[in-house]
């Protein structure tokens, strides 16, 4: 993959409803923390990568103009990378390619969203191409359709899937309680989740991520710089990204090839042959609890069609074989453009032992993931404590 690359610093805002700050101030909050964490200054950075959802989300076209100062990109090269929900993985990959290629030594990556300044569902669903324009249901209906397709394909019992999705939601919300930066911090029971109002059946209220404001910044460095600057870097062990066909009916969304292929590529690069055994923690992109079930299978963490069984027996719960989303995941915090990069930052915190109350004891190898598009894109970054 070229030169070795490491994460040498991360910064996240307090996520939630941030009407207290302007959008550039919010971006600065994350950037400042990342520089403090890495112990470097903006002049040490060779280039900046930024990403968010489409400009309509907050109404500022080309919002990287607006953030130029907060991103510390004045006098430096800037890339904007954007792939919908998978943006956070895409911006990380842009920086990893940049450093691995030898064209830069230190790259700052920033992603953000301030969803309370606009209307996320309106942006994503009111203006689309001629076959889907002005449809009803937003992102929840797209991913509920995917979950139902998966349940139908494997003949998964409705009550069993419901129980497993409730466990995913309860575990994530327990994680959120341990993460002071998470947006949603409430204690839920399985009953709270399974009896909540229907949003897009089978998905109910607590199966859905919140609308969040938040930003995340991650600093990547070459091996030479990382070893010089950072006592405990998080090394990039493998990455993978795949896109797929546009029209939703053209391929199976139950056996989701872009997740399967992206993770296989990342595992191969990282030398991982049994991900469930070898990984210590996974930050799976889980805006919808039912969708996480399908991801667990497509990421190769359990056999196809068996995610509910594995979830019910506790494999992915705190203290289980592979704890997933100890940070609370996307279910507790979804500033969309930033959500995939938060997964990378959380993986870095885990393998460097800096995750605080939500630390998975002794974690050495962590997977981070995000998906986006009309069920179309998947990106994976695996980080480890050893080069």
């Amino acid at each position, binding site marked *: 993959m070229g030169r070795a690359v490491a994460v040498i610093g991360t910064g996240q805002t307090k996520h939630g409803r941030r009407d207290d700050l302007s959008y550039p101030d919010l971006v600065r909050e994350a950037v400042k923390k990342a520089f403090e964490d890495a112990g470097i200054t903006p002049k040490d950075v060779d280039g900046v990568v930024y990403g968010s959802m489409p400009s309509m989300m907050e109404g500022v076209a080309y919002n990287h103009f607006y953030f130029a100062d907060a991103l510390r990109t004045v006098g430096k090269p800037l890339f904007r990378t954007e792939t919908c929900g998978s943006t956070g993985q895409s911006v990380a990959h842009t920086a990893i390619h940049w450093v691995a290629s030898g064209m830069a030594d230190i790259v700052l990556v920033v992603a953000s969203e301030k969803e309370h300044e606009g209307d996320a569902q309106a942006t994503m669903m009111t203006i689309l191409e001629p*076959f889907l324009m002005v449809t*009803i249901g937003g992102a929840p209906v797209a991913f509920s359709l995917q979950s139902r397709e998966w349940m*139908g394909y494997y003949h998964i019992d409705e009550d069993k899937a419901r129980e497993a999705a409730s466990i995913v939601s309860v575990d994530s919300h327990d994680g959120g309680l341990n993460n002071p930066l998470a947006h949603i911090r409430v204690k839920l029971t399985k009953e709270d989740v399974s009896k909540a109002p229907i949003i897009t059946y089978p998905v109910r209220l607590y199966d859905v991520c919140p609308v969040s404001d938040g930003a995340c910044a991650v600093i990547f460095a070459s091996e030479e710089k990382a070893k010089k600057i950072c006592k405990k870097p998080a090394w990039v062990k493998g990455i993978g990204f795949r896109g797929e066909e546009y029209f939703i009916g053209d391929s199976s969304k139950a056996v989701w090839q872009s997740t399967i292929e992206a993770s296989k590529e990342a595992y191969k690069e990282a030398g991982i042959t049994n991900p469930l055994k070898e990984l210590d923690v996974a930050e799976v992109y889980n805006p919808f609890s039912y969708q996480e079930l399908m991801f667990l299978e497509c990421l190769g963490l359990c056999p196809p069609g068996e995610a509910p069984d594995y979830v019910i027996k506790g494999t992915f719960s705190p203290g289980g074989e592979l704890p997933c989303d100890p940070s609370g995941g996307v279910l507790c915090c979804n500033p969309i453009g930033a959500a995939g990069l938060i997964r990378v930052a959380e993986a870095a915190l885990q393998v460097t032992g800096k995750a605080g109350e939500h630390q998975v004891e002794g974690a050495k190898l962590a997977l981070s993931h995000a998906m986006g598009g009309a069920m179309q894109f998947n990106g994976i970054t695996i980080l480890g404590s050893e080069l």
Partner: protein
Amino acid sequence: MAEQKEKPRKVASMGMVPYEMALGPTWTRFFEGFKEKRILGTKCNKCGRVLVPARPFCPRCFEPMEEWVEVAQEGTIVTWSYVNYTYFGVTPDMIPVIGATIKLDGVDCGTGMWTQIGGFDIKDFELVTKKVKVGARVKAVWRRKRQGNFRDIDYWKIIE
């Protein structure tokens, strides 16, 4: 600096932009078919697949798809979801709706356009879970006045 007494506030803004999307020859003909209550697909001569909506080129082979095929108006539900929430532009009178993907008989993909199930009291959720299933058979119900867009199919009716 003196202590700030004001609570940080917001400034309101609203943008309205009209769009006109070119359909091109293939999608124009596809929607012209809707006016005559016909569902048209195109066939790829390389991989042999018939796709709906009709495509100007095969997404996999990258070859032009110039052979037109009129397809069945009946098919099988691949997946469905019951939408029961509102947001900008969606008012309470517009919900619930049942979105679905349907595999039409003789077609090699699911419907890649907005598809909804109807024709009975869908406010009755118990009834919905009884009638709407993955694998259930459905049939297109057309609007009386058709304008050559995806709304011309009013809904898909469950075949009992």
